[in-house]
């Protein structure tokens, strides 16, 4: 299954590798990973989408939390998170296709970052699924070249996170129980 994990880590050398190490040690394939600065320059935020064995889902979160450089980790897989991704797409155009293509771009709400005689370069944001379908639509107009940022996500609840990093330890036991029934 695809697990969506959001983290706050100390901005220190090796911190990223520690986190990915928990996943790669089990042979899991990381689908996407983004790291960026936060308002606090000593911390980085990280969003990972990883293909995991469902039984391991809750344990992974705890094992990541255990890492010394990890300040906060949240499993957003099943929660109402706001999740987005950006794609930069270069698409070849011909004068005949242009009007139709512009309409598609407008409907999706993508931005044209650069144009020249033969191509458009677009900047599109949306959920990963939305981008998937937009990109396959663009593909029907001709060859494209693209790069995607990977997902970033933030918890969708109306309050900001509690300060108690251990608050969820005992709560998640119940869930772990279901997952671990053999």
């Amino acid at each position, binding site marked *: 299954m695809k697990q969506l994990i959001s983290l706050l*880590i*100390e901005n220190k*050398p*090796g911190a990223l*590798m*520690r986190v990915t*190490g928990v996943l790669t*040690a089990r042979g899991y394939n990381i689908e996407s990973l983004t790291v960026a600065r936060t308002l606090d320059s000593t*911390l980085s935020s990280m969003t990972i989408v990883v293909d995991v064995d469902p039984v391991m889902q*809750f*344990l992974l979160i*705890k*094992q990541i*939390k*255990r*890492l*010394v*450089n*990890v*300040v906060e980790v949240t499993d957003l897989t099943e929660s109402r998170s706001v999740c987005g991704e950006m794609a930069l797409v270069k698409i070849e155009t011909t004068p005949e296709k242009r009007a139709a293509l512009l309409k598609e771009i407008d409907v999706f709400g993508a931005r044209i970052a650069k144009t020249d005689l033969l191509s458009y370069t677009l900047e599109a944001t949306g959920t990963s699924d939305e981008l998937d379908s937009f990109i396959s639509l663009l593909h029907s107009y001709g060859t494209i070249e693209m790069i995607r940022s990977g997902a970033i996500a933030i918890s969708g609840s109306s309050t900001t996170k509690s300060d108690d*990093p*251990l608050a969820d*330890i*005992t709560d*998640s*036991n119940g869930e*772990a*129980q279901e997952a*671990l*029934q*053999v």
Partner: protein
Amino acid sequence: MSVMSGAQILLESLMREDVEVVFGYPGGVTLPIYDVLYDHPLKHILMRHEENASFAAEGYARTTGKVGVCMATSGPGATNLTTGLVDALMDSIPIVAITGQVPSKLIGRDAFQEADTFGITRGATKHNYLVKDISELADTIHEAFYVASSGRPGPVLVDTTKDVLIANTEYRPAIQIEKMRGYELRIDPTDDEVDEAVEFLWQAERPYVYAGGGIISSGASDELAEFVESLDAPVALTVMGLGAMPTEHPNFISMLGMHGSYAANMGVTECDLLIALGVRFDDRVTGRLDAFAPNARVLHVDIDPAEMGKNRSPDLGIVGDVKHVLQRLTQRIKETKETQGRKNKEARGSWKERITGWMHEYPYSYEPSKNEIKPQKLIQKIDSISGGEAVMSVDVGQHQMWAAQYMRFNGPRQWVVSGGLGAMGFGLPAALGAQVGRPDKVVFALVGDGGFMMSLPELATIASNKLPVKIIVLNNGTLGMVRQWQELFYDKRYCAIDMDCFPNCELLGAAFGIKSRTVDKPGDLDEALDEAMAEEGPFLLDVKVTPEENVFPMVPSGGAVNEMILEQPKPVTVGD
């Protein structure tokens, strides 16, 4: 404040952490440290291999409760340390490893003896550091000790570049560890947790305590005894937990798990409340998970939140220091005994009787012999010399399991074992480290002939430091535990198990200047052991035992713990 070099700051920081000894091996990039050590009060023990330096640091830590320290140079020195780091990680043993690294400017250029120690040891440590700036050195060392020894203890490595070691700076002792935002510890249980747990305890008709290494790390032996006495519950210990409770304690059953006793494994199968204290539901304990305590509610106490539900989901999980949690539980038990204690009293009484019955029915046993030295007999003899007081460091294999079955321990930190990793070559160097840490104790290194050959060079370290370790080789001529598995599960297709060309131990001992003796007759054993004990210095005793003896009971790997093989299967006669 004074100006000091990185190497001086490093050693000064170790002194401030109360380090009394470093197990190490020098090399190019650590020469600045050795130059300071030349006339420094800190004691350094020159090992004969870095792997053994890490094992010795562990032996020291396991027997003293202090942080063990080992040191190695860059590249091969650092890679040689890693087995001991993983061993310490698996068994939650606090050690700090100091490694030298090539100068910062050369990192990444394939410099001579460069290895990515920081990367290689990431998965081998609880945490690791690469220091490239002298201003961070002292704080990093102190943080390393804090991380190694707090929470769930473990190995921490500090890799320091050579330029840091030779640079100079104003040294200011770190006052206090800066708050580590990503490192939170939970020590005490909440009142609600305590109340709920004690409710579980009184509701149980067949409570069973399964305790392990966490009791020893947390120094909770007395609390464990008080707890089980207040509840009058039976206790089994994991291989890591041996000594957490005196072997002779009336509530103690034995070790449980793959080579645990019948009573311990039947008890865990039949109990209705499993009280798991400082344990991790290791597969060598649980066997097939769904058959482990199948009808029990589980109360799990551990300091590591990631243990909750890792292998078995608890009905109540308490994250906290088991010492603190047990104190609170016992106090609450005493407060509620009057009103609640009568509940299930009868059921609990007959439960204890059942367990005692199992203990009498199937104690650990073996077929005695007049002509051969039985390995179990050898261990019983060592045990009677020890009287529960000696330190016993073992290697990995059959001898390790027999020692776990037959040795008695009056207290914690006497039993030194590579439990989680099962690293052969551990026993001898760990005994060496233990003897350095506990000069007051008799220290036995009980090793197999296989594991002994892995740690042979440390005979020199033992001799050179006049460490009075009593080295006993339980010599069955083969890699015994592998032979046992091939016999029982691979149709006796014995492959790669002969330890032939084993050295003559009397010549070997003489070559290292260690008194030694070989025995192969039961009649000579007592006298040989007496001779070993009478010797002031180290002694090497090679005991030729029955070659084909197996360790029983045995739960086949992945089997249910109540389906033990209790004794040697009888040969099947054709036509029967």
